[in-house]
């Protein structure tokens, strides 16, 4: 069955000030209705200040990272979209005509990008409105209906989230920073829009539900009407929105209180030169430049700071070895310590030094991992850490002595091995490793034990 899915995504832009006034934007951290002024509460007579330049710049950068063409050299009107709801202090929301269009991300076409302002927060139960959020800048991203399954849609949203985070220009914290409307149509049915979705998971579930609902309807020979529905997160279903909420005409008019935006080519080129490389393109470049695996590249670009760190390390150590370490051991250490790449305190040079020691076999990978853990706690020269941790490579004679001793003390295991039980080797290796307090490479130990035992047999 042919399914078409598209998104309208609203993401808060991380600015210090609101879109059309100078109120701070940290609405979650303050008491209700304290970040407000006559402008963002729509007091009679209040007029907007000129649009927040930081927000405009962020929207341009986001659009560029999504491969959009920026609308330059022509007037971009800020429009008033009228609707009657308690969270909207002036009875209209300001939204720009597209500032960019015709982008693409992972095969999904981006139709257009707008600048908007957030309304306040209405609590229908208490009957109160908090206008702290009113006027916080938003970027609205509209896609073409290019996704064909909920899985594909979910993947797109995840990648999009990563791109947005990469810009460093969006509000990262959870709690309504990203809101999504999805539209979905099945072959033979009308286009259904679902609102009130606040997470990637929510979008996936709403889509799953809608496909079943619409498919069943079509199977029964009923028609799927074009309509707007609301997602109920708690029940994971969608319900029709009241006609009143959808039929109302928004009556767009250009806001007479704001000069239209005009974006100059020069400004866009400057932004393009300064912008971060989008993660999906960076992934491709890392694979080609360093010859690393897609799996490793994917992990490395998952955070912008991690990718920056990787490229710094790759300058001073084997990029392939570094990639496999980033993908496995470093990621493991960061996860264990609940750190983000941005929180890493040791330097790329220290990490590179450690990897060079691994490469030259001065330390075993297991030892190096211990060093890495220590590095994450207290940045230092890895050579010194090796010494401090007592991880000096041992002499061959000491290793040999230890093996002989272990074999002597564990005759039973030796016999098991002779009887064909391969696991016995692992047991013996562990014993040797324990005796040497981890100062030897377990692969080497195993190899020596086998050598000794085979020699004895012959």
């Amino acid at each position, binding site marked *: 069955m042919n399914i078409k899915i598209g998104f309208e995504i609203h993401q808060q832009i991380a600015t210090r000030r609101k879109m059309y006034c100078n109120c701070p934007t940290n609405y979650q951290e303050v008491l209700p209705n304290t970040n407000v002024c006559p402008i963002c509460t729509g007091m009679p007579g*209040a*007029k907007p200040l000129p649009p927040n330049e930081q927000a405009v710049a962020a929207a341009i950068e986001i659009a560029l990272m999504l491969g959009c063409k920026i609308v330059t050299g022509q007037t971009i009107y800020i429009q008033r979209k009228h609707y*009657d709801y308690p969270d909207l202090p002036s009875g209209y929301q300001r939204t720009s005509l597209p500032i960019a269009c015709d982008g693409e991300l992972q095969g999904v076409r981006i139709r257009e990008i707008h600048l908007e302002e957030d309304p306040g927060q209405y609590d229908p139960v208490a009957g109160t409105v908090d206008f702290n959020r009113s006027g916080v800048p938003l970027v609205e991203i509209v896609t073409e209906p290019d996704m064909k399954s909920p899985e594909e849609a979910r993947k797109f949203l995840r990648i999009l989230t990563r791109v947005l985070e990469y810009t460093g220009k969006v509000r990262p914290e959870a709690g309504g920073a990203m809101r999504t409307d999805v539209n979905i149509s099945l072959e033979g049915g009308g286009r259904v829009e679902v609102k009130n979705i606040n997470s990637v998971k929510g979008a996936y579930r709403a889509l799953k539900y809608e496909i079943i609902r619409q498919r069943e309807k079509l199977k029964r020979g009923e028609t799927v009407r074009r309509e707007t529905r609301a997602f109920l997160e708690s029940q994971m279903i969608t319900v029709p929105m009241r006609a009143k909420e959808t039929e109302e005409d928004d009556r767009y008019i250009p806001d007479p209180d704001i000069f239209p935006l005009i974006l100059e080519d020069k400004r866009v080129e400057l932004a393009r030169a300064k912008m971060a490389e989008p993660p999906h393109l960076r992934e491709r470049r890392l694979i080609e430049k360093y010859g690393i695996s897609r799996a490793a590249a994917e992990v490395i670009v998952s955070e912008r700071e991690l990718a920056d760190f990787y490229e710094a390390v790759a300058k001073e150590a084997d990029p392939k070895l570094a990639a496999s370490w980033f993908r496995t051991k470093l990621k493991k250490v960061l996860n264990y310590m609940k750190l983000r790449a941005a929180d890493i305190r040791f330097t790329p040079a220290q990490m590179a030094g450690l990897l060079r020691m691994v490469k030259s076999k001065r330390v075993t990978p297991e030892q190096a991992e211990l060093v890495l853990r220590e590095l994450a706690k207290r940045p230092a020269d890895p050579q010194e850490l090796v010494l401090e941790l007592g991880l000096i490579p041992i002499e061959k004679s000491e290793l040999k002595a230890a093996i002989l001793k272990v074999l002597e003390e564990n005759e039973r295991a030796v016999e098991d091995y002779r009887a064909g039980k391969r696991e016995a080797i692992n047991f013996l290796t562990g014993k040797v490793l324990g005796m040497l307090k981890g100062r030897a490479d377990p692969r080497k130990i195993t190899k020596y034990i086998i050598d000794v035992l085979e020699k004895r047999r012959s």
Partner: protein
Amino acid sequence: VVQGTLEKVSAIQRGDLLAVENVGTFLDLIQKNDKKINSFLELNRGAQADAEAVDRRIKRGEKVGKLAGLVIGVKANINVIGLRASCASRTLENYVSTYDADVIKRVRAEDGVIIGINNMDEFACGSSGETSAFGPTENPAAPGHIPGGSSSGGGAAVAAGFCDLCLGTDTGGSIRNPASHCGIVGIKPTYGLVPRQGLIDLGMSLDQIGPLAPDVGGAALLLETIAGKTQNECVLLDVSEVSYVERLKDDGIKGMRIGVSPKFAEIADPAIMRVIDEQVEKLRDLGGEIVEVDLPNLEKAMPAYYLIVSVEFFSGTRKFDGRKYGKRIEDVCGEEVLRRIVRGRYISQKEYRGKYYQRALQVRTLIRHELMAALQQVDVIVGPTVPKLPHRLGTKLTPMEMYAYDYLTIPVNMAGTCAGVVKAGTINGIPVGLQVQGKVLGELDVLRVMRSLEAAA
């Protein structure tokens, strides 16, 4: 006895007249006569104290502002902290301003004393002063007649001698129309010259705040006080400092090119045209060069204006939804306000946009080009302000008859240019004002022409 507003402010600055006396005289007059005129909705209890503060500073020899001790009334759609910006509507009857409009800040910075809030047509929707929810205002210059609107209270207060100056607003003629009917001076500044921050909207793309004054000097003084860019608003022209009063002293109008249009006689009452034509002859005598200009589409501005203003007014009044200010506007407003909201709601619908709103915007562009082209050939255009004399209070007019008052003033708002009104004469004792239209930021030329006529009267 002081002659004009400029002389009065000098007398106060010198200490020859106390600001507190100035306020006291006006308060007495208001007490005595405003029951009948109904030009004030609320008086500022702090006015005396504000005036005393100015006097104290003068006594100590400190520098005071250019409006020192002058008494100023403010239209009820401009926010003055602590006073009711009711827009003469039940919707906002209990709305006490929490902030000062930018123009009020500037008036205060120059030591003007705000005496109170003037009556007006409800939400500035009206041309007669009769749509106020708090009763109509009477014309002190033509008793029994309307003062014109929508800055009805301001026009009447200045004409009645209740204050030195008033701040009015003009969206389609709301300063010039009462100035004409009341025989005083009024100026609609170039769109974007005066900040609107704190002005409650009628039509955001047309509204301007401007002065109402007994003389040209007073109008020039108040205008230069409130004009100029702020960082506090988007839609302002890049004009930093303006000075009219000093430059008005320079010279007359010798060699100025003064436009007239045969179109005016098609629209205005012949009796009014006779008064206007006399003034045109006077301007010729004063050395002006009279040039005929072509304004073929002038009368198209009015119907287009009422579409645009209705859409903008509809949008601007959505905040009066009954959640924050007591009653919902549609539930309590008068019929002209409701008419405009309903019209705005209707024509801004998606299916009618092309038919009405877009067409109206096209006409606006046409009018702007036409007026700009005419103003390329001349320095100013002079003509009548209103096509007919003010009707008697209580006369029933159809909406179209009421709108017809604005035929000659609306084009200026549509083009975003400036215009001033000065008394031209009287017909059976009823004042008639001459409208002087200027280019974008041509206020000084407009003031010069008005000053010359005033001096020659």
